[in-house]
């Protein structure tokens, strides 16, 4: 199982990078031209997040600079450790469902601080990648069709988020711990 996961992680990108254009070429797609056309958007997407990232990272930088994050984590640490929840990941777990740009900034900060190859950095990246920004998604899609009574959508989505967070912590500890 662990070997299979390692194998997927190692080979997924190189195989897809060759396989997708290969299938495209067989089906008569001008792969190079189409690739370049799609890749153009990459710059825009990356540039688009700069203002969000500046806003959040400045606020987090001030928060951390003042030592407020340490105070908050220290206050919550005993309760979180009691259930083996890494206290450093608690703010990310909360913010992930609320704000995509905010949780991206927070995840980036954890990766920078703890190191990109540390257990904490990898768990933060896994947590970020394993779920969507729940409230944004619900607002956009229900809003698009004018649904006001969302019934069990919010509780179901939050249960999914909570399970994804716990699964991320458990599987990362198992793989990288």
């Amino acid at each position: 199982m662990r070997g299979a996961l390692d194998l997927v992680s190692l080979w997924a990108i190189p195989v897809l990078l060759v396989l997708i254009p290969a299938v495209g070429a067989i089906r008569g797609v001008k792969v190079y031209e189409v690739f370049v056309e799609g890749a153009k958007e990459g710059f825009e997407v990356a540039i688009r997040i700069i203002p969000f990232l500046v806003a959040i990272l400045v606020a987090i930088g001030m928060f951390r600079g003042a030592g407020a994050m340490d105070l908050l984590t220290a206050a919550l640490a005993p309760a979180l450790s009691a259930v083996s929840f890494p206290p450093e990941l608690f703010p990310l777990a909360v913010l992930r469902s609320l704000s995509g740009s905010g949780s991206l900034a927070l995840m980036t900060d954890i990766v920078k601080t703890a190191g990109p190859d540390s257990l904490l950095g990898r768990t933060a990246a896994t947590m970020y990648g394993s779920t969507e920004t729940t409230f944004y998604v619900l607002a956009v899609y229900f809003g698009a069709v004018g649904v006001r009574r969302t019934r069990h959508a919010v509780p179901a989505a939050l249960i999914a988020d909570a399970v994804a967070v716990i699964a991320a912590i458990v599987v990362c500890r198992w793989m990288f711990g």
Partner: protein
Amino acid sequence: MLNWIWLGLMAVALVVAAVTGTPDNLTAGAIDGATTAVQISLGLVGIMALWLGIMRVAEKAGLVALLSRLIAPVLRRLFPAVPADHPAIGAIAMSLAANALGLNNAATPLGIKAMEELQSLNPRPSTATNAMVTFLSVLTAGVQLIPATAIGVLVASGSRMPTSIIGTTLVATAAGTTAGVVAAFALQRFFPEREEADDEQGAA
């Protein structure tokens, strides 16, 4: 929401700095944050371009449409109230495939199209149907085969093995998605589609 979190972070920082007497750390933190933000964003340009380029090729090659056909049998079980030949099935398949492949630009329009198709089956247009909640619980769980943004951040931060999180992310997202679908089915009886008029106004 984010307005208050943002302001709150800075306001709390100011109060803490006032108590501890370290305003210089605050300034350094702010400038450092702004600089890091731009470094990270620019570090993302390459990997975003690479991935969006490959995904455009996958679309043109018909691989997205192929994936839709592959997951159609699963969809019939997830959405028992939707007739198998209804256009909603195809729209949901395309939307989930675009999400799984990380085609963010395509995913949102396709998802809205799927919601419109589901709305055409809805007898009470202001109330969510079971199928809509199931669909959105899968979307908010965010099934993604390659977590490109998270990998991008690891690359930009100098990781030696940035793709190591693909396997763990797949496990976590599968667990979350399963929980979301189970919760959507388990909870639907406690949130009836038909409800009294005053409840209709209370819930937003």
